[in-house]
């Protein structure tokens, strides 16, 4: 029995330490000289509930991105080539991921906290945004887009999917109530108003339209059908939406009436 460590083992330990030190040195250099780092603790930034884009200087933008079950707000961002974007990300419900594929921006969107990262978009093209953290049964449908365009004077958000349309002054009070509930109850997460398909069918023009169901039947959507779909969403399932089942929401009869009137008004 020897009291000494074998020379080969000593050599291996020394090599391991040297290699690790070199590796750490490279990472430190990348962080210090090239700014390649990871998200830090943000102080004094409160979580926000609405997405927005603002232009700070010519090429410098600030994007507030809200993640929610199961879409991004804004879902689409258009920016000029060379835009340098400070991106703040928060979540309204559960933990989501926010990965702009093709860039190094890959952030966790955590409810109750704000995350931050910066991207410079040097090349024109489409940069898809992917939610890469499991966030519930429709997680696979949660994505967005950043489009980088040449010869664009200023970035903008094309028709935010969940944008509240201007309220007409002569709107019936029931419709106004329904519009409020549409946002409050979270219908907005799955049913768009502008014809785009998010998780469930769009509300645009749904009233009076022929709907086809998985059991082979069809119906021209009337008040009774809309009411039934709110109260018992599993009764008739529209073809193409078998994969995501809408849950029942606790609503009063007055609220249902408001929602029906509001859905009828979305043309």
């Amino acid at each position, binding site marked *: 029995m*020897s*009291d*000494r*460590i*074998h020379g*080969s*083992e000593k050599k*291996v*330990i020394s090599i*391991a*330490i040297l*290699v*690790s030190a070199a*590796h*750490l040195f490279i*990472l430190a250099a*990348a*962080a210090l000289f090239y700014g390649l*780092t*990871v*998200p830090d*603790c*943000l102080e*004094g930034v*409160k979580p926000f509930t609405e997405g927005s884009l603002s232009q700070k200087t010519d090429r410098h933008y600030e994007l507030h991105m809200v993640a929610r*079950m*199961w879409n991004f707000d804004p879902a689409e961002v258009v920016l000029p080539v060379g835009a340098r974007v400070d991106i703040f990300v928060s979540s309204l419900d*559960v*933990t989501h*991921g926010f*990965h702009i*594929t093709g860039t*190094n921006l*890959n*952030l*966790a969107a*955590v*409810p*109750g*906290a704000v*995350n*931050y990262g910066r991207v410079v978009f040097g090349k024109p093209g489409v940069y*898809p945004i992917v*939610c*890469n*953290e499991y966030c*519930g*049964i429709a*997680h*696979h*449908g949660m*994505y967005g887009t950043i489009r980088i365009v040449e010869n664009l004077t200023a970035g903008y958000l094309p028709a935010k999917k969940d944008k509240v349309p201007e309220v007409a002054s002569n709107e019936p009070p029931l419709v106004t109530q329904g519009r409020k509930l549409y946002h409050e109850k*979270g219908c907005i997460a*799955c049913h768009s108003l502008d014809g785009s398909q998010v998780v469930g069918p769009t509300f645009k023009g749904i009233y009076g339209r022929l709907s086809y169901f998985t059991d082979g039947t069809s119906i021209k959507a009337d008040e009774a059908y809309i009411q039934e779909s709110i109260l018992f969403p599993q009764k008739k399932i529209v073809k193409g939406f078998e*994969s*995501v*089942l809408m*849950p029942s*929401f*606790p609503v009063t009869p007055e609220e249902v009436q408001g929602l029906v009137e509001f859905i009828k008004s979305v043309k």
Partner: protein
Amino acid sequence: MHIQPAIRKIVLIELILPIVLLIFGIYHGLLQTLYRAGYIKVASMLGINYYQGLTAHGVINAIVLTTFFAVAFGHVVVTSCLKKNLHVGLAASGFVLLLIGTLLAAAMIFTGHASVLYTFYPPLKAHPLFYVGLALFVVGSWLSFYSWIPTYRLWRRENPTRKVPLAVIGIFSTFIVWQIATVPVAVEVLFMLLPWSLGWVAEINIVLARTLFWFFGHPLVYFWLLPTYVMYYTMLPKLAGGKLFSDFAGRFAFLLFCVLSAPLGFHHQFSDPGIGVNWKALHTVLTSFVAIPSMMTAFTLAASMEHGAKSVGGTGLFRWWGKLPYMDAQRWLFPYLFCGLVIFIFGGVTGIINASFSMNSLIHNTAWIPAHFHLTVGGPVFLGILGMSLYLVTGLLGSDIRNKKLALWVPYLWTLGVCTFSTGLFMGGLKGEPRRTNMGLSYVNPESTGFRSEWISGASIGVLGGVIMTLSVCLFFFVFFRMLAEKKDLTKLDSFALIESEAYHDENIGFVRNLKPWIVAAVIAVLCSYAIPLYNIATSKDIVGAVPFAPDSPMAQGTKK
């Protein structure tokens, strides 16, 4: 083999039960590759939703199988290496709690009340009984571990001058790592998730919950790995026909893992908000120290195998590799360990990328991550568990393996499968393909607005790998269940023994003789790296509490008007 009849029964159930559950775990593994490549474009198959099956796949394969195995293997190692009895009361109550915990969690998962994946990140909320099941499971593993402590102490008192057998040091290190790791997750489950899921508290701090989870989550991976390290250090050299090159290296590696496995969980949270960048950098540095036990192990095991190969006529710098018992049916356990080591080279290299600070943002939460950990927990760990379960159950039952040649092929086929699978997922991950996603419904579905054609090739290679992996495990099931059905001869139990390698260099080094100073060092390391950030997260004014959500509804729970 020295083993009490009660312990023998407990060990047998603890080994066989998870292998039965594995049938579902593997089934849904294969199914996931099909969903992800778009061969299945639905939300559910046979009544099991994709995410529900994914939860079961993670819980069964990575928690139930690994923990039951570590406990059972530990029972055998401690009792047979020290030739002493274990505390049956503790071992039995530990087993009962492990069983109840498993049944509760499984019931919640299969009835669709816990589709929250095995990381159960809040504010996605599972049924309270799911959390109760997890807590009982963890306590069960603790009690099982405590059943060895009186045995260990008695042996030390009776043998004050002898070194504790290396396998015992290894398995104790495994459970010291587990003990340290499970305290924060117990705090998360018992004091945060459980009262919150019951509605007793309205909101919880999500950043804190995630930090406590990963405080557990990284040492968890070493808890998976260390039982296989015990096999590598104490069995592989003898299976290769040689001796362990250095007994010191084994001891030092195990004790280093005790200290180095816990204080570095932030490398799973590089993308998280609410944690200071300097703390993330500190955890990066601490992570890299794991290079020392890893490279030492790589060298020592290669040197041990070289000793084995050269004692049967192997020569040269590399030619001796040809002399190892790759196809020797009598030593069918050798390829289970050897293939695991080969796979682990790639698992280790890709792990360095994950843990490398800014480099992480390229692959964080992409398909790259499951590709990586199928080469670690799905490589050396899984093959070690399969091989050793077959070896132990055969021996403890006094049974016989009818198809040793077939058993021999399992690890080779698995290696081919898992490397193919991971290659596909690495390709997709580098192009941004997300993990944990039912891609057949969106990204690989040409009818979807989110269609991404560039992810199809990687996902399809994943299917090929998944099919080969499934074939390999089916082969294993055949060998295993056929062995269970063989005629048993209990008199064989006396001659059954664990494989124990001799040491080629049997050093007597003072600082690796005692566990205590290493446990103290581990606690100090954890305090230094976690105390301040945890305090900052818990008291931050910039973090707002979060209310629970069910995975199938965008409506917050507990806010009914």
